[in-house]
C-alpha cells in the first residue's frame, strides 16, 4: 500500500475540486498501481491533474486517463509509462475528446502495438483532427477503432488508412466515419498481402471517385477474394490505372472485371487480365466495355485467340475512338467479323441453307435442317441436344459444332452428321415392312418371322413395332437392330459415294478409338460391342476369349452379311433375329480375368453361318447353367456421329401422319390414333426408361408423351424452320445485336457514323399488311381532285412511251430505207464508198420501271395542316398584297383543306400518283412505316409489286394513319431489298415524309440527332449501290438543313406548302422517270 503523502493529497484535493468523480477515479486507479515507484506514481498523478486542469472539459479526458491506466499498465512495463502518457498529454492540449479516446483505446491497442509506437499512433490520430467538431469525432472514432485496425494492419498501414480517412474527410466526414465502422468487416476478409494494395487503390480513388470508397470497402474484399491470389496485385494495379478516366472508375472496373472473371475458366484468368491491361493502357473506357463483352466473345473464340481480337479493336481505337468503343461494345460489324474470322465454332444457323440443300439433293425430298433443340423440346422421345437425328421429315443437328480446331473441319463434321441421317432416309431405315422381301435371306425364314408376328395379338402402329414386340428383351433387340442397320447404311453409303468414303472412314476410325475394351464388359454387352465394331467396319483382328470365338465369329458373319450391296432393312431385321437368338442365350456376367485370348479376324465375312452351325451353337449355349452374377443388360456407349436413331418412333410418327392425312381427307373431324398401340410401344421403350421416377411418374410421362406425339403427328409442319423456337422480343434496353425467330421479320444493320461502321443486326423490321378500311377513299379522292386527275391523265397519256420505234440506217433490218439506198447509189456513182447501212427496222422500246413508294406514318403526320400555316399567315401580313392573294387562294381551297392532316394529304397524293402509274403501266409498290425502337420497326404492306390495284389495296390505303416514330434507315433498307427482288431496268424509291428521322435510341448516346440522319443517308447510299434511284420528298419546311446531309448526291425536294403535294408528286414522278 502506497503511502499517501502530502503531494498526492494535494493532487487529490485539486481533482476533487474539479470533479468529485475524478478524485474517485484517481483513488481507485492508484490502488492498482503498486508497480510504480513513488516518483513515477507522483508524476503520473501530476499528469492526470495537468490534463484535468487544461480546459473546461478536459476533466473527462483525465477521468478516462485514470480509469484506463490500470489496464494499460498490465501491457506496459512501468518504465514505459511516459511513452504512453506524454502523447496523451499532448493530445489533451488539443482536445479533451481526442485525449479521452486515446486513453480509452490504449489498453486494447497495446495488444498489437509496441509501447514505442504509441506516440506515432497518437500523432496519426491527431493528424485527423482539424479543430472542427466533426474532425474531432472522426479522430476520436479513429482511436476507438484502432484496436480493431491493429488486429489486421501494422502501424504503417494504419497510417495509410488514416491518410485515406483524412483525404476522404476533405470531402465528407460522414463517409469517413462510415468507413471506420466497416473496418472489421473489411479487413477480416482480406488476406495479409492484399491489404496494402487494397488500401493503395482506395487512396487513389479519393481524388476522382471519393464517393465510391465506401462501396469499395464494402465490395472490394469480396471481389478480391474471388480472384486468384497470384493475380490480385496485378488486378488491383489495373484498377488503379482506371482512376481519373472519364466514365470509368476503379470501382466499376473491379465490379465488372470480377463479373467477367466469374464467367471465365480459372486457368485463363491471368491471360485475361493481361489482355485487359493491354486495352486499359489505351483507353480505360474501352477496357470497361471489353470486360462486358469478353464473356460473349469467349463463347466464340478461345482465350489464346483473344489478343488477336483485341488487337483489331485497339487498332481502330487508335484511329477512331468512337469506332474503337463500338468495337469493344460489340456494336460494330467489324468486331463481329473479326470474331467470326478467328472463331472455329460453327453455328448451325450459318450453314443451315447449305446443308439443307445438300441433304435435299441426296434424299430427293424436301429436307429441313433444324436445331436439335426443337426436337428435344417437343418432348416426344428425343432427349439429346448434342446429337443428330431425324424424324423422317427433317434432320436435326446440334446448334453448334466446336469439336475441331477449324471451321472447315467443323463443317466436315456437320456434313458427316447430316449425311448419316440422310443415309437412313435414302436406304429406307424407316421403311421396314413385313410386306417386303429381304434381299439376302431365304424366303422361308422370312415367312416364319411373318407368321410369328402375325400370330401375336399386340396392337402396333407399325411393322417395326410388331417386329420388336416378338422379343422379350426389347432393349437388346432394338440395340442389335440399330447397330446392324447403322452398319448396313454406312457400308452402303460408302460404297456408292466415293467422295465421302475417306472422310467417313476417318470418322469411323475415330469412333472406334473411343470404344471401350471388350474385357471390361459383361457377356451380352461385350457381344453387342462386337456389333458396334462391325458396324463401324473395324478391320483386322479382334482379341476375344477363345471360348467365345465361335460366338463372335457367327455374330460378325451375320452382321457383315447385310453390309453387301442390295441388302435392305428387312435383311437387317432378319439378321437381328439371328443375332438376338445368340446373344440372348449368353449370360450377361462379367468376364473372368485371365481367359485365353485368341484372335478373330473381323474384317471379312466368311458368309452366313449355315443353319446347322447355328443350331449347334444354340444347343451349346442352352447347356450353360444359370449364373447368379448375371446383371441387367445395358445399351452400349453411343457412337457420336450417328446421333439418335429411333426407328420405332419415326415409323410410328409416319404412320400417324399418314392416318391423319387420310382422316382429314374424309373430313370427319379429329383423327383417331391407336392410343393403345402407342402405349404398348412406350411401355418398355428405352425413351421412357431414360427418365427416372416411380411407376406413377412413368404412367404420367407416358400419357404426356402420347399426347405430344399425337400433336406432333397432327401438326402440319410447314412453318419456317426457325419459327416457334423462341421469342424475339428481347429486353428492349439491351445494347446487343438482335435475333429474329419469327417469319416476316428481318434484321438490318445500322450505320454508326461516328464509329464509321455498322452496328450488326441492329434493327428488326416487322412486316405486315396494313389493315383494310373502306375502298371508297380511293375513288372519293379521285372525284375530289377531278380537275387534277384529268390533267394528270392527259400529261401521262401524252408521255406514254411509244411501243415501237422506227430505227433507220441499220446494217440489217426489215426493209430498205429508201432514202439511204438512194444516197448510197448516188455516193457510188460519185465514186466514193457508199454507206452500207441502208435498212430500217422497228425496235421495241420497253419501259421497264419499278417504283416503291415509302410512306412516313409517324405520329407527327397527324398534325393538321392549318396549324402549320399559322406562321405563314403572319408572314404574309407584313405584305398586304401577298396576304390578300394568299387569302383568296385559301378561300378557294378552304373547304377541301379544313381539318386535313398531313397524312391525309400524303394519302391523297399517293392516290393521284397511283392513277398516273396505272396509266403508265409502271410496276409499283406502296409501303408505310413507323415503329417504336429498333426492335419494332413496323413495315406496312399497302401494295406489293405483284399485286394489282384491287379493292383490298384501296381499302388498305384508307387505313394509313399516323402511328409512332420514324426510323427511316431500316425501312429504307427493307424497301431496297424489296426492290432488289424485282426485275426491272430502272428502279426508284420515293420517300414521302414530314420531318427528320427520329426514334427512341435513334441517336448517339441519346443526344446526337445527326446519327439518325447519317444512318438514313447510308441507307440511301446502299440503295443507290444496288442501282435504285432514291428520292426524298418532305413537307417539313425546316427540312433543308438536315436534308442537305441526308440526301447528299441524290434528289430531294422540300415542299413549303403541304397542300401542293397532290399536284407536285405526280409532276415530280414524271420529270424523274420519263
Amino acid at each position: 500500500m502506497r503511502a499517501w503523502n502530502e503531494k498526492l493529497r494535494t493532487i487529490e484535493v485539486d481533482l476533487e475540486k474539479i470533479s468529485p468523480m475524478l478524485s474517485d477515479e484517481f483513488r481507485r486507479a492508484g490502488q492498482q498501481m503498486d508497480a510504480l515507484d513513488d516518483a513515477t506514481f507522483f508524476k503520473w498523478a501530476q499528469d492526470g491533474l495537468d490534463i484535468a486542469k487544461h480546459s473546461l472539459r478536459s476533466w473527462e479526458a483525465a477521468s478516462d486517463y485514470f480509469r484506463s491506466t490500470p489496464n494499460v499498465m498490465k501491457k506496459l512495463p512501468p518504465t514505459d509509462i511516459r511513452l504512453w502518457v506524454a502523447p496523451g498529454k499532448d493530445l489533451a492540449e488539443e482536445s479533451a475528446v481526442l485525449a479521452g479516446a486515446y486513453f480509452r483505446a490504449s489498453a486494447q491497442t497495446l495488444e498489437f502495438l509496441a509501447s514505442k509506437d504509441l506516440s506515432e499512433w497518437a500523432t496519426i490520430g491527431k493528424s485527423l483532427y482539424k479543430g472542427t467538431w466533426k474532425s474531432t469525432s472522426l479522430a476520436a472514432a479513429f482511436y476507438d477503432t484502432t484496436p480493431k485496425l491493429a488486429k489486421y494492419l501494422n502501424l504503417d498501414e494504419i497510417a495509410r488508412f488514416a491518410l485515406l480517412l483524412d483525404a476522404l474527410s476533405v470531402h465528407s466526414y460522414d463517409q469517413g466515419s462510415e468507413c471506420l465502422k466497416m473496418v472489421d468487416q473489411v479487413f477480416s476478409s482480406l488476406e495479409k498481402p492484399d491489404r496494402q494494395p487494397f488500401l493503395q487503390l482506395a487512396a487513389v480513388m479519393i481524388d476522382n471517385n471519393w464517393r465510391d470508397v465506401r462501396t469499395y470497402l464494402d465490395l472490394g474484399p469480396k471481389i478480391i477474394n474471388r480472384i486468384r491470389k497470384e493475380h490480385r496485385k496485378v488486378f488491383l494495379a489495373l484498377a488503379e490505372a482506371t482512376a481519373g478516366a472519364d466514365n470509368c472508375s476503379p470501382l466499376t472496373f473491379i465490379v465488372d472485371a470480377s463479373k467477367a472473371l466469374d464467367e471465365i475458366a480459372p486457368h485463363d484468368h491471368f491471360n485475361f487480365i493481361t489482355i485487359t491491361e493491354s486495352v486499359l493502357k489505351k483507353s480505360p473506357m474501352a477496357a470497361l466495355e471489353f470486360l462486358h463483352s469478353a464473356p460473349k466473345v469467349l463463347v466464340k473464340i478461345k482465350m489464346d485467340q483473344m489478343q488477336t481480337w483485341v488487337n483489331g479493336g485497339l487498332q481502330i481505337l487508335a484511329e477512331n475512338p468512337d469506332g474503337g468503343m463500338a468495337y469493344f461494345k460489340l456494336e460494330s460489324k467489324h468486331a463481329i467479323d473479326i470474331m467470326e474470322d478467328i472463331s472455329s465454332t460453327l453455328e448451325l444457323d450459318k450453314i443451315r441453307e447449305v446443308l439443307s440443300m445438300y441433304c435435299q439433293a441426296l434424299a430427293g425430298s424436301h429436307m429441313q435442317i433444324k436445331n436439335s433443340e426443337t426436337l428435344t423440346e417437343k418432348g416426344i422421345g428425343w432427349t439429346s441436344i448434342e446429337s443428330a437425328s431425324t424424324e423422317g421429315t427433317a434432320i436435326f443437328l446440334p446448334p453448334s459444332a466446336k469439336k475441331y480446331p477449324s471451321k472447315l473441319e467443323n463443317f466436315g463434321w456437320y456434313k458427316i452428321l447430316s449425311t448419316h441421317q440422310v443415309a437412313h432416309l435414302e436406304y429406307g431405315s424407316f421403311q421396314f415392312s413385313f410386306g417386303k422381301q429381304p434381299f439376302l435371306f431365304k424366303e422361308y425364314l422370312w415367312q416364319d418371322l411373318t407368321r410369328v408376328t402375325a400370330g401375336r395379338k399386340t396392337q402396333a402402329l407399325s411393322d417395326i413395332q410388331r417386329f420388336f414386340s416378338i422379343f422379350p428383351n426389347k432393349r437388346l433387340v432394338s440395340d442389335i437392330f440399330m447397330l446392324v442397320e447403322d452398319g448396313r447404311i454406312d457400308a452402303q453409303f460408302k460404297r456408292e459415294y466415293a467422295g465421302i468414303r475417306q472422310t467417313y472412314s476417318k470418322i469411323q476410325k475415330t469412333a472406334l478409338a473411343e470404344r471401350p475394351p471388350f474385357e471390361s464388359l459383361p457377356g451380352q454387352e461385350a457381344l453387342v460391342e462386337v456389333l458396334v465394331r462391325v458396324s463401324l467396319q473395324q478391320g483386322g483382328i479382334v482379341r476375344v476369349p477363345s471360348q467365345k470365338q465361335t460366338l463372335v465369329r457367327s455374330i460378325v458373319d451375320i452382321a457383315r452379311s447385310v453390309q453387301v450391296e442390295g441388302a435392305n432393312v428387312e435383311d437387317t431385321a432378319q439378321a437381328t433375329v439371328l443375332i438376338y437368338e445368340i446373344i440372348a442365350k449368353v449370360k450377361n456376367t462379367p468376364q473372368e480375368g485371365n481367359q485365353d485370348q485368341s484372335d478373330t479376324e473381323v474384317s471379312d465375312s466368311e458368309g452366313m453361318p449355315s443353319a446347322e452351325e447355328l443350331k449347334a451353337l444354340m444347343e451349346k449355349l442352352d447347356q450353360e447353367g444359370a449364373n447368379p452374377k448375371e446383371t441387367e443388360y445395358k445399351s452400349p456407349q453411343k457412337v457420336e456421329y450417328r446421333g439418335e436413331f429411333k426407328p420405332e418412333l419415326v415409323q410410328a410418327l409416319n404412320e400417324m401422319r399418314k392416318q391423319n392425312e387420310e382422316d382429314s381427307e374424309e373430313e370427319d373431324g379429329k383423327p383417331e390414333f391407336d392410343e393403345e398401340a402407342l402405349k404398348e410401344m412406350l411401355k418398355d421403350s428405352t425413351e421412357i426408361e431414360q427418365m427416372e421416377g416411380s411407376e406413377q411418374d412413368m404412367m404420367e410421362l407416358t400419357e404426356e408423351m402420347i399426347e405430344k406425339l399425337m400433336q406432333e403427328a397432327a401438326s402440319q409442319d410447314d412453318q419456317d424452320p426457325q419459327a416457334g423456337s423462341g421469342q424475339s422480343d428481347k429486353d428492349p434496353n439491351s445494347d446487343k445485336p438482335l435475333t429474329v425467330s419469327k417469319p416476316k421479320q428481318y434484321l438490318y444493320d445500322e450505320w454508326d457514323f461516328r464509329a464509321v461502321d455498322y452496328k450488326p443486326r441492329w434493327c428488326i423490321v416487322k412486316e405486315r399488311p396494313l389493315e383494310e378500311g373502306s375502298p371508297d377513299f380511293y375513288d372519293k379522292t379521285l372525284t375530289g381532285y377531278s380537275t387534277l386527275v384529268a390533267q394528270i391523265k392527259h400529261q401521262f397519256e401524252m408521255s406514254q412511251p411509244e411501243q415501237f420505234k422506227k430505227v433507220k440506217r441499220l446494217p440489217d433490218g426489215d426493209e430498205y430505207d429508201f432514202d439511204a439506198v438512194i444516197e448510197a447509189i448516188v455516193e457510188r456513182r460519185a465514186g466514193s464508198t457508199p454507206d452500207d447501212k441502208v435498212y430500217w427496222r422497228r425496235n421495241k422500246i420497253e419501259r421497264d420501271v419499278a417504283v416503291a413508294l415509302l410512306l412516313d406514318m409517324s405520329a407527327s403526320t397527324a398534325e393538321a395542316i392549318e396549324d402549320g400555316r399559322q406562321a405563314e399567315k403572319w408572314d404574309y401580313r407584313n405584305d398586304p398584297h401577298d396576304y390578300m392573294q394568299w387569302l383568296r387562294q385559301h378561300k378557294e381551297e378552304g373547304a377541301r383543306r379544313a381539318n386535313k392532316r398531313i397524312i391525309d394529304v400524303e394519302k391523297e397524293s399517293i392516290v393521284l400518283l397511283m392513277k398516273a402509274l396505272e396509266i403508265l403501266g409502271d410496276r409499283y409498290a406502296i409501303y408505310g412505316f413507323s415503329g417504336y425502337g429498333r426492335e419494332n420497326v413496323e413495315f406496312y404492306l399497302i401494295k406489293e409489286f405483284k399485286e394489282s390495284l384491287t379493292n383490298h389495296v384501296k381499302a388498305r390505303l384508307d387505313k394509313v394513319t399516323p402511328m409512332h416514330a420514324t426510323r427511316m434507315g431500316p425501312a429504307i433498307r427493307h424497301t431496297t431489298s424489296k426492290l432488289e427482288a424485282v426485275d426491272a431496268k430502272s428502279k426508284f424509291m420515293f420517300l414521302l415524309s414530314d420531318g427528320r428521322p427520329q426514334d427512341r435510341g435513334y441517336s448517339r448516346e441519346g443526344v446526337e440527332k445527326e446519327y439518325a440522319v447519317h444512318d438514313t443517308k447510308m441507307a440511301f447510299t446502299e440503295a443507290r449501290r444496288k442501282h435504285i434511284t432514291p428520292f426524298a420528298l418532305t413537307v417539313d419546311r425546316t427540312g433543308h438543313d438536315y436534308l442537305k446531309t441526308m440526301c447528299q448526291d441524290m434528289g430531294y425536294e422540300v415542299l413549303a406548302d403541304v397542300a401542293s403535294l397532290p399536284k407536285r408528286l405526280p409532276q415530280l414522278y414524271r420529270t424523274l422517270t420519263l
Partner: protein
Amino acid sequence: MPEIKNSYKERAIEEYVLKEDPFYIPIKDEIELFEAAYEQKLPVLLKGPTGCGKTRFVEYMSWRLGRPAASVKRKSKKENEGERQIPLVTIACHEDLTASDLVGRYLLEGEETKWIDGPLTRAVRVGAICYLDEVVEARKDTTVLIHPLTDHRRILPIEKRGIVLEAHEGFLLVISYNPGYQSALKDLKQSTRQRFIAIEFNYPPKEIEKEIIKHESGVDAQTALDLARLGEKVRNLKDHGLQEVVSTRLLIYAGRLIAMGISPRRACDAAVVYGIIDDPEVQKSLQEVVSTIFE
C-alpha cells in the same frame, strides 16, 4: 511444202445432211411417234428442259428417216443413189429474229437488188426438216409466219416477192420449246401450239444417262455412273433453290473434262456447279454433293 488439210467444210444450209449415225438412246416411244408424224406431215413440237437431247433427237431422226436401210425394197446401188437423204435445217431463235431473217430479203448487188432466200424458204423448197430451236425466243411475227406451213395448206407466202411456196413433200417443221424456262410473256400462243403434236422430253433415268455420258464423253462406266448420280441428286433440287437443274449436256461436258485428266471434283465444279447457279450458298451445297460423290 506441207499440205495443209482443209479442216472445214462449207455447204449450203439446205444441203446439210447427217452422214453418221448420231448416238441416241430412246427413252420412250418418241422415235415411233416422230416417224408417224413425219409420214403424216404433222409438225412436231419438242418440249423439254435445256440439254436433255431435243436437238440430238432431231438429228437422229433426220438421219434415221433418210437412211437407206429405212427402205428395204431398194436393191440396186443405182437406185440407192437416188435415195434421198433428208437435210436438216436448224435455226436457233433469238429475240431479234424477224420474219425476214427466216423467209429471205433483198440484198443490194451491183446496181440492183437480189432476192436471197432465208433458211426456212430453202427448207421448204428442198423438203428438209426445219428445226426452229427455242421458238418462243423469236419475235412474234415469225410465229405467225409459220402458221400456213403447219396446217393442211403447207404453204409459205413470200409477200415481198408476191409468191406462195408450196412445201416439198419431205418438208417437216419441228420446233422446240422449254416450258417454265421462259417468262409468262414469252409463252407460246395457243393458236401456235395447237398446230403441233407435242413430244415431251425429260432428263433420262440414271441408267440410260450413264450410258449416254459414257458414250459421249468416253469416261469409264464408274465415272459415268457417278456423273449420272450427280445429275440425279442435283435434279432433286429443282424448285428448291435451283430454277434450272443440270442438263445431260453439262454432265457430258464434265465427263469430257474428266476424260482429259481434270480431277473429277474440279471438272464437276466447272461444268456443273458454276455453270448452273451464281448464288454462292447454293454453289456450296452443290459442291458438297459433288465432294460426297467424287473423290
